C-alpha cells in the first residue's frame, strides 16, 4: 500500500521554488509535531509505570525511567479482580468475535450477489439502523425481557453484527472477487455454501482481518454494555474493573474492591499512580499486539467499503 501511495508524490521533483520549500518545511513540522504529541504520552506511560512514583510526580521522569522497579506490575499480578476481568473479557472477545464473523461474512456474501433480489430492500433496512434506533431504554427493556440481563450472553450476542462492517465486507466481495469465478464454480456444480467457504473466504483475507480487528477492539474495549446490562461482579469485563481501579479510586479506599481477597483491594497510596500506569499498559497491550499484523490491510480494507456508504 505505501508503495503505491508514494508513487505520485515521488514524481513531483522539487523545483526549488520558495513556495515548495516552505511546503516541505510545513509538512515536516506538522508531522514531527503530530508524532511527538501522540508518541510521547504513550512513551511516558511506559517509563512512568516502572519508575518511582514520587519522582514521576515531581516531574523528574521525562526521558528515561528513574529508580526502576516493577512494584506496579507485582501488585497487579496479585490482584484477583484484574485477572477475573481479563478472563471475562477474553471469553467475551473470542466468542463475540466468532459470532460476529459467522453472522457478518455470510450476510455480506449473500448481499453482494446481484442475483439475490431481496437485497434491494434488506440493505436499506440494515442501513437505517445505523442512524435510527430505539434508544437506550427500549433496548435495555428488550434485553431484560429476553432474560439476558446479568448473563455473559449479553456481552456476546448484543452487537452480533455491525452494519458498517457488513457494508465494508459486502463491497469488498462485490469489487475484489470476480463474478466469473462464481460462474466457473457453478458450472463445476459448486453450491453457494461451498463456493463461499472454499473460494470467497480464502480470497478475502484482507477484509476479514480488518473487520476482525474492528470487532476484537470493540469487544475488548466494551464498557457500555457491561455498565448497562451486567451487575454481577464475577461477570464484569476488564473495562469495568479498570474503571473501578483507575477512576473511582476503589483500589485505594481500602478493600472496596469487588470480591477480591484482603490486600488486593487496597494499594498503598504512594504507589497509586505507578499502579495506574501499569494497569493501563497491562490492559491495552493485548489489542496493540494484534494491530501491526493487520495494519498492512488497513487502507485497502477501509477504503473499499466506506466510500460507497
Amino acid at each position, binding site marked *: 500500500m505505501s508503495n503505491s501511495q508514494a508513487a505520485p508524490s*515521488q514524481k513531483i521533483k522539487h523545483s526549488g521554488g520558495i513556495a515548495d520549500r516552505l511546503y516541505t518545511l510545513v509538512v515536516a513540522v506538522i508531522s514531527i509535531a503530530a508524532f511527538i504529541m501522540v508518541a510521547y504520552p504513550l512513551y511516558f506511560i511506559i517509563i512512568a509505570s516502572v519508575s518511582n512514583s514520587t519522582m514521576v510526580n515531581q516531574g523528574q521522569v521525562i526521558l528515561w525511567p528513574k529508580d526502576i522497579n516493577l512494584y506496579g506490575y507485582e501488585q497487579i499480578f496479585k490482584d484477583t479482580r484484574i485477572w477475573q476481568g481479563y478472563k471475562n473479557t477474553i471469553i467475551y472477545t473470542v466468542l463475540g468475535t466468532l459470532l460476529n464473523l459467522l453472522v457478518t461474512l455470510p450476510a455480506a456474501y449473500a448481499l453482494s450477489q446481484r442475483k439475490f433480489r431481496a437485497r434491494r430492500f434488506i440493505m436499506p433496512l440494515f442501513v437505517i439502523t445505523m442512524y435510527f434506533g430505539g434508544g437506550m431504554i427500549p433496548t435495555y427493556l428488550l434485553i431484560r425481557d429476553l432474560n439476558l440481563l446479568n448473563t455473559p450472553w449479553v456481552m456476546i450476542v448484543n452487537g452480533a453484527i455491525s452494519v458498517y462492517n457488513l457494508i465494508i465486507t459486502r463491497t469488498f466481495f462485490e469489487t475484489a472477487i470476480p463474478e466469473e469465478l462464481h460462474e466457473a464454480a457453478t458450472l463445476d456444480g459448486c453450491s453457494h455454501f461451498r463456493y463461499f467457504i472454499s473460494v470467497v473466504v480464502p480470497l478475502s483475507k484482507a477484509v476479514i482481518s480488518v473487520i476482525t480487528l474492528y470487532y476484537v477492539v470493540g469487544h475488548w474495549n466494551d464498557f457500555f454494555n457491561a455498565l448497562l446490562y451486567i451487575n454481577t461482579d464475577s461477570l464484569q469485563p476488564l473495562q469495568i474493573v479498570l474503571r473501578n481501579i483507575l*477512576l473511582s479510586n476503589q483500589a485505594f479506599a481500602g478493600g472496596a474492591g469487588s470480591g477480591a481477597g484482603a490486600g488486593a483491594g487496597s494499594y498503598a497510596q504512594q504507589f497509586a499512580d505507578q499502579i495506574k500506569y501499569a494497569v493501563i499498559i497491562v490492559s491495552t497491550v493485548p489489542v496493540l499486539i494484534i494491530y501491526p499484523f493487520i495494519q498492512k490491510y488497513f487502507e*485497502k480494507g477501509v477504503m473499499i467499503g466506506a466510500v460507497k456508504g
Partner: protein
Amino acid sequence: MVLPAVIYIAIFCYGPMYGIQLAFREFDFSKGLTGGEWAGLKYFEQYFNSPMFWPTLRNTFIIAFFSILLGFPMPILLALVVNSIRSNRRKRILQTTVYMPYFISTVVLVALLQIMLSPTTGLIDGFLKALHLIPADTNLIGDPGAFVPVYVISAIWQACGWNSIIFIAALSSVDAQQYDAARIDGANRWQTVWHVEIPAILPTIIILLIMNMGSILSVGFEKTFLMQNSLNKPVSEVISTYVFNVGVKSNQFSFGSAVGLFNTLINFTFLMLANALAKKTSKISLM
C-alpha cells in the same frame, strides 16, 4: 445466508424501535414494554418543561459542534501531510504512531486524562503552567470551563490518525498524470494540494461530513459519562447521560425513552438536512 443477520437486526434493532411507543405510554412493570396505559405526549412535555431541558440540549450541542468544527478537518490535514512525506519509512512510522491511540479504551483514556491533567502532579498540567498557557490555579479536570476543550482535544488526539486513514486511501487513488499535469502548468506544491488533492478527496469529505452530521447529537455516552464529576456536571450532562441517569438509574423508563427519542429525531433531521444540502450543492449524497 443472510438470515442470521436479518434475525439479529429484527430483534435487536427493530425490537427496540417497536419499544419506542414506551415514550407514549405509562410504563407498567408487570405488563412490560407495551402494556401500559396510553399517555400521549405527556413525557415529552415533561422533558421540555423540565429545568434539565435547556442545559442538556445546550451541552450536547456545544460538545457536538466543537467536535465537528475542530475534529473533522484535522484528519484531512493529517492525511495531506502523510501523503506528502516522501520517505516510506518515515511515513510508516508516523502512520503507525498516530493510529495507535485509537486502540486505547475510553476508560483508559479518561484515566490518562485524569493522571496527566492532575493540578498537582499532572504532566500536561505542569507543562501548560510552565509555559504560562493556563493560570496556576487551574484544575483542568474539575473546571467546568475546561470540560469541552479537554473533551474535544483528547478526542482529536485519540481518533485523528485513525480517521485520516480513509482520506489517505482516497489520496492514494489520485492519478499520477494529474500531478504531472499540474507540474507542467507550473503549479507549486500548495497549488497542487488545492487544485488536485483536495478536489480528489472532496467526495469522501462530503460523505463523511454527512455521516457525522447524522450523529451530531449522539455525543459519546461513554466518554462524557466517565469524565463526568460533580464539579463539571453543569456542562457535562448531555442528553445521553441524562437518559441513563433518569431512565436506567432511577427507573423512569417512559420519561427516559421520550428523551432518547427526542435525541434520535433531532439526529435524523440533521442527517436528512445535511444530505439534502449536499445533494443540492454537489450532487453527492448518502441515499
